[in-house]
């Protein structure tokens, strides 16, 4: 072996080819079946693409790097299902580009946070986390309440996602602006009902609330738990 290898060590090209083949094997064996074995990601009924407003909210979530402190992946342990809700299933993430499972919980998991709190909770919490949760180390995100939501790219974003297999219809893409205004109006009304002052429906915080309230709700588990 030693002698043969000695010869190989003078063959730069052959050596590089061997390295390439070796490092490709593991990745191919693990990744390719995920695309061809249907049982790998069982489809879940009721899982729908994000609405345009939720999509914009999700992009804000990504922009602010929330995944650095919050996971979106409830593991199948009693303490986690007790704390957060039903454990996460593969089929719930099929429209997530990119995935946001996260790897660290400086703050709690967020996959089942949707509909856990009223909209006003999130509104105030993003303004000053310690007002809602004393002792929290989360930064204040007050600019979300000031910045106007940029919707100039929403249509284009939906078109790109459609190319990637997210089933947005051409009508949905065309009607994105109207749909966003309608959903934002609903959140605005709820915030006003909950006595929040100085709300404006065209701010980034509205989109983020839309996204957070949507999280983990496609399987309708909260409804199922209601007596």
């Amino acid at each position, binding site marked *: 072996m030693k002698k043969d*290898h*000695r010869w190989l060590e003078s063959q*730069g090209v052959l050596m590089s080819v061997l390295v390439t083949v070796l*490092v490709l094997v593991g990745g191919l064996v693990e990744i390719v079946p995920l695309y061809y074995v249907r049982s790998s990601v069982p489809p879940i009924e009721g899982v729908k693409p994000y609405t345009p407003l939720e999509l914009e909210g999700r992009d804000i979530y990504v922009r602010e790097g929330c995944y650095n402190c919050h996971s979106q*992946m409830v593991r199948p342990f009693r303490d986690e299902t007790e704390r957060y809700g039903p454990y996460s299933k593969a089929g719930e993430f099929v429209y997530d580009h990119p*995935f946001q499972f996260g790897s660290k919980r400086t703050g709690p998991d967020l996959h089942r946070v949707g509909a856990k709190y009223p909209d006003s909770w999130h509104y105030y919490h993003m303004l000053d986390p310690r007002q809602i949760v004393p002792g929290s180390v989360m930064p204040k995100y007050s600019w979300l309440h000031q910045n106007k939501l940029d919707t100039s790219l929403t249509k284009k974003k939906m078109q790109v996602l459609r*190319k990637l297999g997210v089933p947005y219809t051409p009508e949905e893409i065309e009607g994105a602006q109207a749909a966003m205004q309608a959903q934002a109006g609903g959140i605005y009304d709820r915030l006003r009902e909950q006595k929040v002052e100085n709300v404006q429906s065209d701010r980034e915080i509205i989109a983020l609330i839309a996204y957070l309230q949507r999280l983990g709700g496609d399987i309708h588990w909260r409804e199922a738990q209601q007596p």
Partner: protein
Amino acid sequence: MNYTDPAPVSAENYDDDTVRGFVFFTMFWGAVGMLAGLWAALELAFWQCNLESPYLTFGRLRPLHTNAVIFAFSGNAIFASVYYSVQRLCRTRTASDLLSKVHLWGWQLIIVLDAVCLLSGFTDGKEYAEPVFIVDQLITLIWVVFGVNFFWTLARRREKHLYVAIWFYIATIITIAVLHLVNNLSIPVTLFKSYIVWSGVQDALIQWWYGHNAVGFLLTTPFLGMMYYYLPKAAEKPVYSYRLSIIHFWSLIFIYIWAGPHHLLYTALPDWAQTLGMCFSLMLLAPSWGGMLNGLLTLKGAYERVRTDPILKFFVVALTFYGMSTFEGPMLSIRSVSALGHYTDWIVGHVHGGALGWVGFTVFAVFYWLVPRLYGTRLYSTKLATIHFWTGTIGIVLYMVSMWVTGVTQGLMWRAFSQDGSLTYSFIETTKILFPYYLVRALGGALYLAGLLMMVYNLVQTARSGRATNPPVPAESVRPSRLEQV
């Protein structure tokens, strides 16, 4: 047997200007990246450190820290070490001066662009793959420049035999290219916003296949290559076992690739993929320790010098941390251990054991050896280097121990149940209790950064006492046979 040997010389000179450029930027970005890390650590202890600025929240600063220390500090250090050692091992000047310049300055441009993007909120949102679409394309371009320059240099070599360090460099260049391309395959909305073609669980698997092998092929294989070139030089001893280097090279690169799914244990990833990841992670212990032992045993007969030579001290501790991290990693890959450790600061401690101990200390060892040679002089202060060594070591220990305590505390508190069957602790209780440990961690990080600054001063003084030269390439092989055949 360095270049001052009175051997007959060929017409060309080594290009050490490029090496000096990469050395300079390694030190510069190292200081920036570690300062960002220290600041991020302080933000977890004192939320006020976020300064209510959108540009400096933990969510944006932490990616800046990881990108800066991985791609800027480690990246530049790898390039410096590769450009220096490959020229010597191939006994030829780097193939193209133009490509070397494009590589040097292109990489710094990428870093600046990436830093501005990350702080402004332009990110791909995948760990260690945050650079946005346009930066991804630039990385691809510069990596190709590096690859062409490297393989072209190999093609021009005057030594037939490729030394083991070069095998590791080859694996690095090829594998990082594959990982980067696949994990960043996306369709752009603008130059700064794109959507990855993979989604959900598939995206997660590809991300951690990338993420784990960024550790494997950017923070391990090039550093093993550096260890194989610079450690025998510094110790003036041949590599302990030639046979072991062959075995651990091939097994390491083959097994590493499979281990990614250990980042996704107990998630929605299919069980078979999780099990594969766990098994290969356990197997990875063997080749990793093969490399560590080959390094440590190379010092056989030179142990006496470890007491006095800070370069060897750095190497010994780097290899020890390599051994420790590659033991801890497989242990954390066992499902039941991961159940406790995942999502906690234990993982943060684990990665810093490898990053501060193995990667950082290897860079320090190599540079303390290299910089005096790049300027034809002696190290300005051996004493200061020794102080750096102890400051850094204490810093790492404080960091790791505090993160172990933090991680296990979090993990146990999250899963604690009271007798009535309800959760014992609310989430915020598990956060508040960590404050003192976060302070200790920040202190550890501060010591480590202080050590780096001592090194910067030491190396600047060293450079000032010498003269930058590009020594001639020897016309005949000056390679000591003892390096090759043991």
